C-alpha cells in the first residue's frame, strides 16, 4: 500500500486546493502519470505519480484545501491484493470496482463535537486541520486557528506579494551590475526565414528560441553566470535550465524553466517554449519547472521596448534581457545599412562575477547569434 501525499510544488507552497482528479479507483498508474490537478498561489499544477500501481481509493474531494503532506490517495502496489488492505480509515468504503467512482472519503479522526460544529459554521474543512488534542484530535482551538489562517483565494494579490518579496530580497541581497550591447541579427533573421520556409506552421521557429539557445550555450561556457548563490557561496550548475519570464494575462509573471537547454536543438527548444507558454497561460505547470531555473531570460517581446534591465531571481546569479528587434541604421564595412538589431542586457551578481566576465559572456551570446546554423 502506497499512500500518496500532497507534495510541495514549490518552495513557497505550504498548501494547495484539489481542483480535479485525473484518475479513478481501479486505474492502473505508472511513474510520471498525472494523478490530480492542484491549485496553488502561482498556478494550477499537476501532481505526478512516483510509483506504479493501481488506484485503491481517493481520500480527498475536489475543492478541498489541504496542507502539504496530507494523504490524497492510496495505491495498491503491483501484486498487492485489495483484500490485504487494512480497513480504510473511511467508513464503509468497499473495494471499489473499476470505473465506479468511490464515495469521496475523508480520513476519520477524533473531532470534538464543539469543534465539528464550529468547523461547520466557519466552513472550514476538518481534513485540512492538524489536530493538537489527544491522538491528534481536532479541537475547537484548532478549527478557529485554521479559519484564521485560511488564505483568501485572490491569486493576483498572492502573486503580487510573492513578486514583491522575491524582488525586494534580490535588490537587498544581490549587488547587481549591468551591461548592455547591441547585436545585429541579419544572419539570424535570414536563417529563420529560410528554415521556416520549408516547415509547416507547427514546426516554425521564433527568434526567442535562438536567444534561449545562444544564452544556454554561452552560460555553459561561462559557469559563473549559471547556478545558485546559497549560504554565502556560489554553486555553479552543470545543466543550464533557462527560466523564461512569461507575463501572465491579468498581471504578474512566472519564470518556468526550459530544462537542459544547453543540450537541446533550436527546434526542441521552440517546442518546449510554446508548450511552456501555453501551459503557463493556462495555469498548468509542473513543479520542477517552477522550482529550478539556473539562469533567467526576459524578453518583453517584439512590440515592446529597446532594452530591459532586469532584477535577478535569487538565488540565481544572472539575468539576460532581450529588447525589441528593430531595424536600425548600422555601420557595416564602412557603409550605413538598415539592419535588424536587438539590445541585449546582462544583470549579474557581483559577488560571483566581475564586469570583465560579464562582458565576455554577453559578447559570447552576441557572437553565437551571428552563426545561427551552428546553434
Amino acid at each position, binding site marked *: 500500500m502506497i499512500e500518496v501525499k500532497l507534495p510541495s510544488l514549490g518552495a513557497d507552497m505550504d498548501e494547495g486546493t484539489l481542483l480535479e482528479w485525473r484518475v479513478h479507483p481501479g486505474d492502473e498508474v505508472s511513474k510520471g502519470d498525472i494523478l490530480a490537478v492542484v491549485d496553488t498561489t502561482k498556478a494550477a499544477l499537476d501532481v505526478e505519480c512516483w510509483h506504479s500501481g493501481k488506484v485503491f481509493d481517493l481520500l480527498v474531494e475536489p475543492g478541498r484545501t489541504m496542507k502539504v503532506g496530507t494523504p490524497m490517495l492510496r495505491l495498491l502496489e503491483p501484486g498487492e491484493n485489495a483484500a490485504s488492505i487494512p480497513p480504510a480509515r473511511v467508513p464503509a468504503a468497499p473495494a471499489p470496482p473499476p470505473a465506479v467512482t468511490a464515495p469521496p472519503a475523508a480520513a476519520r479522526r477524533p473531532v470534538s463535537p464543539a469543534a465539528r460544529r464550529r468547523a461547520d459554521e466557519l466552513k472550514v474543512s476538518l481534513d485540512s486541520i492538524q489536530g493538537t488534542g489527544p491522538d491528534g484530535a481536532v479541537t475547537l482551538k484548532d478549527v478557529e486557528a485554521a479559519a484564521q489562517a485560511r488564505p483568501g483565494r485572490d491569486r493576483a494579490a498572492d502573486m503580487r506579494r510573492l513578486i514583491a518579496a522575491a524582488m525586494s530580497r534580490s535588490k537587498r541581497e544581490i549587488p547587481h551590475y549591468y551591461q548592455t550591447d547591441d547585436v545585429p541579427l541579419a544572419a539570424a533573421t535570414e536563417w529563420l*526565414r529560410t528554415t*521556416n*520556409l520549408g516547415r*509547416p*506552421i*507547427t514546426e*516554425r521557429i*521564433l*527568434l*526567442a528560441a535562438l536567444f534561449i539557445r545562444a544564452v544556454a550555450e554561452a552560460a555553459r561556457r561561462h559557469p559563473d553566470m549559471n547556478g545558485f548563490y546559497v549560504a554565502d557561496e556560489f554553486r555553479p550548475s552543470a545543466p543550464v535550465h533557462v527560466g523564461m519570464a512569461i*507575463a501572465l*494575462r*491579468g498581471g504578474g509573471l512566472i519564470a518556468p524553466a526550459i530544462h537542459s537547454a544547453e543540450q537541446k536543438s533550436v527546434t526542441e527548444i521552440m517546442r518546449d*517554449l*510554446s508548450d511552456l*507558454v*501555453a501551459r503557463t*497561460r493556462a495555469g498548468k505547470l509542473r513543479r520542477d519547472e517552477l522550482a529550478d531555473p539556473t539562469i533567467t531570460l526576459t524578453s518583453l*517581446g*517584439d*512590440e515592446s521596448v529597446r532594452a530591459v534591465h532586469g532584477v535577478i531571481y535569487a538565488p540565481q546569479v544572472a539575468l539576460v534581457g532581450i529588447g525589441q528587434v528593430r531595424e536600425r541604421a548600422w555601420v557595416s564595412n564602412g557603409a550605413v545599412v538598415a539592419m535588424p538589431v536587438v539590445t541585449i542586457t546582462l544583470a549579474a551578481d557581483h559577488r560571483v562575477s566581475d564586469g570583465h566576465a560579464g562582458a565576455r559572456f554577453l559578447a559570447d551570446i552576441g557572437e553565437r547569434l551571428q552563426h545561427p546554423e551552428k546553434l
Partner: protein
Amino acid sequence: MDERQLRSDLIGLLQRVAPEVDPGELDAAEPLRRQVDLDSIDFLNFLISINRQFKVSIPESDYEKLRSLDDIVSYLLKAMPAPSGGSGKASTSAV
C-alpha cells in the same frame, strides 16, 4: 463559409490564447496584437489553432498581412477550400 460564423470561430480561438478577450470591446479593424496584448508566441499559437481548425496553411511571409481580425477573416475566406459537399460557391446554386 459564413463570414459571421468564421468571425465567431476566430474569436473563440483567440479566447483560447487570451481568455479575457471581450468580443464587444474588440475593434476588428485595429491591429490585434497590441489590442489584445499577444506576444509572438501567443500569436503563433493563435495561427496554429487557425491552421488546425480551418486547414489553411499560412506561410510565414504572410504573417504581416494578418494584423487585424478583418485581415484574418478576408485572408481565410480567400484561402479556404470549399468544404466537400458543403456550402462553397460551387454548390450554392444546387441548394
